[in-house]
């Protein structure tokens, strides 16, 4: 039996756990595939963003003529690649042409420089100024100022310089600014700012002179914040010179040039890179960067060289938050593992429950087969006794009347026992089959209990039934059989000379009927089992007491069918008390 049960149990465990393990294996495999798929999807998405970015960059490069970069040089070129105009340069590459001066101006210069007749020279300069072209005006004003200064008319000189400064920019502007600065009329820093903004058409040497002079006037501390800008513009200007000498995409390292249709723009590589990076950004979640070509890519990214082969960069797309994918995968894995754990836990508890059910079932089967054996013994013993005594009486060998009376008494007792057993078994089978019909009546408790006690016909029973107990509602015979079973048990389980007490009292809506004995008592661990059907205490062959193991389960069943409750209080060695609690119906007759 034990081996069979273990085998069955192992089969159940195998049958449940094997699918569990297979589930786990498949789960882990699909988890790995899920991870690979997610990574591939991310890579594909990055690849498509990098393609979009490349298109955006190409479009941006095509618009270079509209760029408005703060530190860039814009040149307008003649077909012979000399500068027509420039913006953003500190000095002009090549030479700066002096405007043409007319006859009046030449005569005035002669009067000023040779004859040192400043009044005549001023008169002639003024005359020339009136007919001068816009380009020549600044040059003439500069000469007027110079002559006036020599003549000691500083006021007039300053007026002329101011006029130059207010005119469109010309080669004369820088000397006029310097004169104004030196005469204290204008702050030196203003001139320096104009100078490094590239506002004067100067040759390189002139620029160096003016810039050196103004820095001297201000002091190095005063220009410190502009020096970086000046350095950058200087590099840009040098790059422009190199570009004009040999027009190439990369004039000097660190600069890039674009030119087309007589127009050129030069700008630092990092400015271009910043501009293109900005143009390349395609959407949230993906960061597009421009990195040097052939640089090693990151783990999860897609890269592509720019379409323009002269630009030294490749586009690279990477997730803004590379850990996000890992995090979401981790989350999914955690969810899966949690689910798997739950399923496994459910499976395991299923195994445990099944094992318990199987154990219960086989235990019950054992009790049931014991029951059959016990019942057949219980039937045969009194029958054998009755038959034997009857045979003896019949054979006539028993002569003494006293002896014959003893035999009759024994036969009566044994047939009572049989009748009681048959009654119990019938009750039990009716209850088990659910065919038991109770006929509910109003029961007058005191009289009913007196009658039940009297029916036991045993001098050891001591009934203490108070008069006037509240009535209960129930099946008179069934309840009587429940109480009788308790009394029967008490008599069976206690020493032959000890008394058994039947008592009853009422309180808080209940009628309590208790049966106490002085028997061996019931161990605590057995108390919960004695009401189970077929359960019997003690070893199978050496029980002190006869019985089929259904009495108490019958009592419990009947009492509970009446909405009552049966309980036991017992201490080993000190007897037991069984109590039936029933609801009372008060005084209302029903």
């Amino acid at each position, binding site marked *: 039996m034990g081996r069979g049960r273990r085998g069955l149990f192992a089969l159940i465990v195998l049958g449940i756990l094997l699918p569990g393990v297979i589930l786990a294996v498949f789960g882990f495999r699909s988890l790995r595939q899920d991870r690979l798929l997610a990574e591939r999807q991310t890579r594909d998405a990055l690849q498509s963003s990098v393609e979009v970015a490349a298109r955006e960059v190409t479009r941006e490069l095509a618009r270079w003529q509209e760029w408005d970069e703060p530190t860039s040089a814009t040149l307008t070129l003649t077909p012979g690649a000399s500068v027509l105009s420039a913006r953003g340069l500190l000095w002009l590459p090549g030479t700066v042409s002096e405007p043409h001066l007319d006859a009046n101006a030449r005569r005035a210069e002669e009067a000023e420089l040779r004859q040192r007749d400043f009044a005549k020279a001023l008169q002639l300069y003024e005359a020339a100024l009136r007919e001068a072209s816009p380009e020549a005006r600044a040059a003439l004003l500069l000469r007027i100022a110079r002559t006036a200064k020599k003549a000691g008319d500083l006021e007039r000189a300053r007026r002329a310089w101011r006029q130059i400064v207010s005119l469109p920019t010309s080669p004369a502007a820088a000397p006029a600014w310097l004169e104004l600065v030196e005469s204290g009329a204008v702050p030196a820093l203003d001139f320096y700012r104009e100078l490094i903004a590239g506002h004067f058409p100067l040759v390189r040497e002139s620029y160096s002179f003016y810039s050196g002079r103004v820095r001297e006037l201000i002091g190095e501390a005063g220009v410190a914040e502009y020096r970086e800008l000046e350095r950058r513009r200087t590099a840009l200007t040098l790059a422009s010179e190199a570009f004009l000498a040999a027009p190439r995409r990369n004039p000097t390292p660190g600069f890039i040039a674009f030119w087309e249709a007589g127009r050129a723009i030069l700008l630092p590589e990092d400015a271009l890179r910043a501009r293109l990076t900005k143009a390349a950004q395609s959407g949230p979640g993906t960061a597009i960067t421009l990195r040097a070509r052939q640089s090693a890519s990151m783990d999860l990214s897609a890269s592509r060289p720019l379409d323009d082969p002269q630009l030294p960069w490749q586009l690279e797309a990477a997730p803004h938050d590379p850990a996000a994918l890992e995090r979401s995968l981790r989350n999914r894995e955690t969810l899966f593992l949690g689910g798997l754990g739950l399923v496994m836990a459910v499976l395991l508890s299923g195994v445990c429950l099944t094992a318990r059910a199987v154990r219960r079932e086989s235990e019950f089967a054992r009790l049931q087969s014991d029951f059959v054996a016990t019942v057949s013994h219980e039937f045969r013993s009194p029958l054998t006794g009755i038959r034997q005594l009857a045979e003896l009486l019949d054979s006539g060998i028993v002569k003494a009347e006293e002896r014959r009376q003893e035999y009759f008494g024994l036969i009566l007792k044994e047939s009572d026992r049989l009748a009681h057993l048959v009654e119990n078994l019938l009750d039990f089978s009716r209850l088990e089959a659910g065919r038991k019909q109770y006929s509910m009546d109003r029961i007058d408790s005191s009289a009913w209990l007196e009658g039940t006690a009297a029916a036991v016909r045993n001098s050891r029973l001591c009934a203490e039934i108070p008069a006037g107990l509240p009535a209960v509602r129930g099946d008179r015979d069934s309840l009587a059989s429940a109480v009788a079973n308790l009394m029967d048990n008490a008599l069976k389980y206690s020493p032959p000379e000890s008394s058994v007490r039947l008592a009853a009292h009422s309180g808080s809506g209940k009628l309590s009927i208790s049966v106490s004995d002085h028997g061996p008592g019931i161990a605590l661990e057995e108390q919960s089992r004695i009401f189970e059907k077929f359960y019997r205490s003690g*070893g199978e062959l050496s029980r002190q007491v006869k019985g089929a193991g259904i009495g108490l389960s019958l009592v419990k069943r009947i009492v509970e069918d009446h909405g009552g409750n049966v309980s036991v209080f017992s201490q080993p060695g000190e007897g037991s008390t069984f109590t039936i609690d029933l609801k009372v119906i008060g005084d209302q007759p029903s």
Partner: protein
Amino acid sequence: MKRILVVEDEPAIAIGLRDSLEAEGHAVEVVSDGVEAETRAREGGFDLILLDVMLPGRDGFSICRILHGGRERSASCHNHPRLVRIAAATFARWPVPCLR
């Protein structure tokens, strides 16, 4: 006349056996539980012991084993009586160790 020990806890059966056997002219002694049965059997002097199986205190099989058992064999038990098992129930899976 033989001395017979009847070990039986059912009073009706025990009295029936006693009276039948006495009517046959034997000296019969009746005990009703296993422990007492073992004590009386050890004291000896019985030609036959009629032993019930389901007994209070100690079951018939173990009394049987003790009285037959090698280690338990003592001088008083040297001339040991014949043992007969009587049982009202049929227990198919019970062994029958006494009847050999």
